[in-house]
Every structure is written in structure tokens, then in C-alpha cells.
């Protein structure tokens, strides 16, 4: 028997295991299922209290959650998943944050952009998104844009009055051809950041409002959960995550550090009938958990 025949004999023995093996339908089904889930999922990261950008730095991939806190809807499904890690939350490089904010500041009101940072900090080649919203200085002007989605209060509990507000519209996170162009441009021109203007979808994703009172400023965001399954967030080991009650329903209080190192306090609660997630965020450290809960209690 020749050497080639022996090789074929081994090959046949090894290949024999694969007869009748077929997982095509199962794999395609799983892919489509995951795609649907991805469409209903948003990974939200805050660089700072002000810039509530949807940021997807590669650092998220190395993150190993040890505990997941969930806020659930009336059907018991998680609408917010807060993944707490035993490792310190990886901070984005100062330069990356600065560049990201520069990109954002270069946009005209109403414009949005996809931003790609190549390099070892972004091994999965993720593309982040940012926007410069059209900011309204009165609650009436904001109400015009918001329509029936949410009744924007001019004043909230504790004597906090409306300062400004805007509407965020959802990005299309699945643009493989655009991403491929951005990767190519970064590679060819050795760029540290590649920016492309993008058009968000014309559906309200979130209404963001700021209020001012004696104890400081509070931000209230109302997120539209139509077509969205859940929002996922990450925190470090020092974060405080507690179950609290708001409007007789389970809610979450969280105190954590943001990517720029500042502290954030927030109360989150979900309105199942209107499919909206409320977040009441302290803009100054002087605001307490009780201040936030008092504001949340009367929001409708």
C-alpha cells in the first residue's frame, strides 16, 4: 500500500464520523433568532452625566459579570439588566473620550455620526454612535416634538423646574457595508478615528429632560420600549445596586462611577402599560437617593 493510500485510509477513518451530520437549519434559525434579539437590545454606556451616548467600546467584551440585577416588567421579563463585575469597570482612555466628545461637538444640532476607533482597545472593531440633538429651552417646545409619547412636565417634585430637553432617535446598528468602509479607511489612512454621518430612524427612542432646583439638577430620561426587549448596562464592583419601590412597583436605585470617573446616582422604574422606562438621574452629588425617589414617585 502506498503512502498516499495510507493517508487516505486515515482520512476516511476520521471523516467517517461526519456522515449524515447537518446543522444548517439549526444554525440559521439561531442566527435569525439572535438577530431579532439584537434588534430589541440596546447596550447603553454613559461617558459622562451629560453625554448619554450609545457607546460601544471594545472594553465591554472583556467584562465578566458576577451578578446581574434585573428590573422586570409585569410579565416578569427583564427590561433592564445591570451586570456587576468583580473587576473594576474598564475606563475608556482619556484621549478616546476627548476625541469622542470632539466628534460630538463638531456635529450640527440634529446630526448623528458613527465613530470607529481602531486599535488594541477595540479588538472586536465595534463602532460607536453619537448625536448632537436639537435642544429645546421650554417644555412646550419639547412637547411639540415629543407629541403623545410623554407629557413633559414644566415642574417636578421638590420644586425642580424645566431647564431644557431633547429627543433621541434610534441608530441603525447593523450597517456592515458602512462599517467595512470605515475599517478600510482607518487601515489605509492610518487614522485614529473614522467618522461617518448617519441618519437615525424617525421613531422616538428617548426623551431627555433637565430640571433645576435648590439641591442641584436632575435629569429625567424616558425610554420607549416599543420593539425593544431590554437595556443592558455594566458596573464595577464598587457600584451600589438596590431594589426600591416607586409607585408601588419594584424599581432600582444605582450609584456607580461613569467612564469619565464621575459619580452617578439614578433611580429606574418601568411603566408596563405605556412601555416606557424612566430614569431619574442626579446631576450633582448633593442630590440624595431620597430626592430621586421623591421625584420618581410623582412622574407620570
Amino acid at each position, binding site marked *: *500500500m*502506498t*503512502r498516499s493510500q*495510507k*493517508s487516505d*485510509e*486515515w*482520512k476516511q*477513518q*476520521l*471523516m467517517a*464520523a*461526519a456522515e449524515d*451530520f*447537518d*446543522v*444548517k437549519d*439549526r*444554525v*440559521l434559525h*439561531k*442566527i*435569525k433568532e*439572535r*438577530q431579532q434579539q439584537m434588534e430589541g437590545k440596546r447596550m447603553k454606556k454613559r461617558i459622562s452625566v451629560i453625554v448619554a451616548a450609545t457607546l460601544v467600546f471594545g472594553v465591554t467584551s472583556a467584562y465578566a459579570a458576577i451578578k446581574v440585577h434585573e428590573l422586570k416588567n409585569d410579565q416578569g421579563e427583564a427590561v433592564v439588566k445591570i451586570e456587576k463585575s468583580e473587576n473594576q469597570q474598564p475606563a475608556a482612555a482619556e484621549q478616546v473620550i476627548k476625541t469622542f466628545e470632539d466628534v460630538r461637538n463638531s456635529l450640527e444640532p440634529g446630526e448623528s455620526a458613527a465613530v470607529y476607533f481602531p486599535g488594541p482597545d477595540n479588538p*472586536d*472593531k465595534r463602532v460607536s454612535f453619537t448625536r448632537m440633538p436639537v435642544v429645546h429651552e421650554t417644555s412646550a417646545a419639547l412637547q411639540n416634538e415629543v407629541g403623545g409619547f410623554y407629557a413633559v412636565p414644566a415642574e417636578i417634585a421638590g420644586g425642580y423646574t424645566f431647564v431644557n430637553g431633547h429627543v433621541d432617535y434610534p441608530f441603525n446598528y*447593523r450597517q*456592515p*457595508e458602512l*462599517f*467595512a468602509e470605515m*475599517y478600510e479607511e482607518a487601515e489605509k489612512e492610518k487614522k485614529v478615528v473614522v467618522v461617518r454621518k448617519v441618519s437615525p430612524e424617525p421613531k422616538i427612542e428617548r426623551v431627555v429632560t433637565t430640571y433645576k432646583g435648590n439641591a442641584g439638577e436632575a435629569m429625567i430620561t424616558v425610554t420607549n420600549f416599543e420593539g425593544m426587549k431590554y437595556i443592558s448596562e455594566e458596573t464595577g464592583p464598587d457600584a451600589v445596586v438596590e431594589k426600591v419601590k416607586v409607585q408601588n412597583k419594584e424599581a432600582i436605585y444605582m450609584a456607580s462611577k461613569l467612564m469619565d470617573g464621575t459619580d452617578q446616582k439614578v433611580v429606574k422604574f418601568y411603566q408596563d402599560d405605556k412601555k416606557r422606562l424612566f430614569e431619574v438621574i442626579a446631576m450633582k452629588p448633593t442630590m440624595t437617593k431620597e430626592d430621586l425617589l421623591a421625584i420618581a414617585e410623582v412622574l407620570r
Partner: protein
Amino acid sequence: MDNHEMEQVIKGVRAGDIDQFGMIIDAMQKPLFVYCYHMLGHRQEAEDAVQEVFLKAFERLDSYRETVSFSAWMYKIAYHHCLNLLSRAKLNRVVTFLRAGIQTVSRHEGEKRVEAEEYVSNPLHVALTKLSAKERNLLILRVVEDRSYEELALLLDTKPATLRKQYERALKKCKSTMIVMEGGDRHDAISEVR
């Protein structure tokens, strides 16, 4: 499927046509199953692994560059996936059991026992279980996929000459195992395989 056809299919999938990924699965699923089966020594684990490898490949498709062949890129994903599985304690126990040749396992691992017995009924399979994951990877890619040392060098980031030595060592180990199992009948045959 030739390289040009594969490029077109990848382009289609990247543009959002998920069903075109089915053509990649058709082309790659059997060789990948063979690879995972012999890396893991367990049919069900291999079946699950192949599905996970395809899912990972789909998710990372944008990062694929034509510096290596697409199938080589898939094998790299499969190799790391199998390594991760092997590092898990449960599967490690099964491999240890195979290596030690112990014939009994706990009731909870009844299914694995049947699988393990099926796997070790073939002398060549037994010989593979005696190799390290790295050696098995090399041997399967050489024998089943006919990969050249030059291509494997790109894939494994190791010099071709080093891979050749490692491959020869792996063959020797297989030979020793099969001599023990078959009383030397296969000695000549094994030494002749490439």
C-alpha cells in the same frame, strides 16, 4: 466552493443576506464536525461546538480579512472554541478518563460513557486522545484537510519547520499507541502516513 464563490457569498452575508450563510454551512459543516469531534472526543459536544463556531463566525464576519483562506479562519475559531471547552473541568474529566482508560464513570455521565466507548473503539481515535490539543489540531488539519505546513504556519503563527517536527512527534505518539493496541500490525502503515 472555490475562493471566488466564497468571496461572493461572504459579501452577500455582510450585506445582510443571512440565508447565504447557509452555503458556507453546507461547505464547511462536515469538515468542521470531523475536526471538533476528534478534538473533543465526544459527538454531542462536537455537534454543539460546530453550531457555536458557525455562530461566532457569523458574528465576526466583518473582521475576516483575505490574508488567510476563509476555511483556515473558520478552523482558527474552531480551535480556540475547542480549547475553551477542553479547559472546562467537566470535559477535562472525560478526557482524563479516556487517557487513563478507566472503564467506569458516574451514573450522571452515562451518556458520555456510551459516547466515550464509541470513540475509543477505534484505535486511531484512541491514539488521538493521547495527544495534546495542539498536536491533535495539527494532525487533523494535516490529515483531513491536507493543509500545507506553510498555510498552517500562517494560521498557528509558528514556523513551518517547527510544525513539521511537532507533526512528526504527534505521529510517533500515535504509532506507539496503535502498536500497543494492535500488536504492531499498524506500525508500518502509520509510519507511512505523510
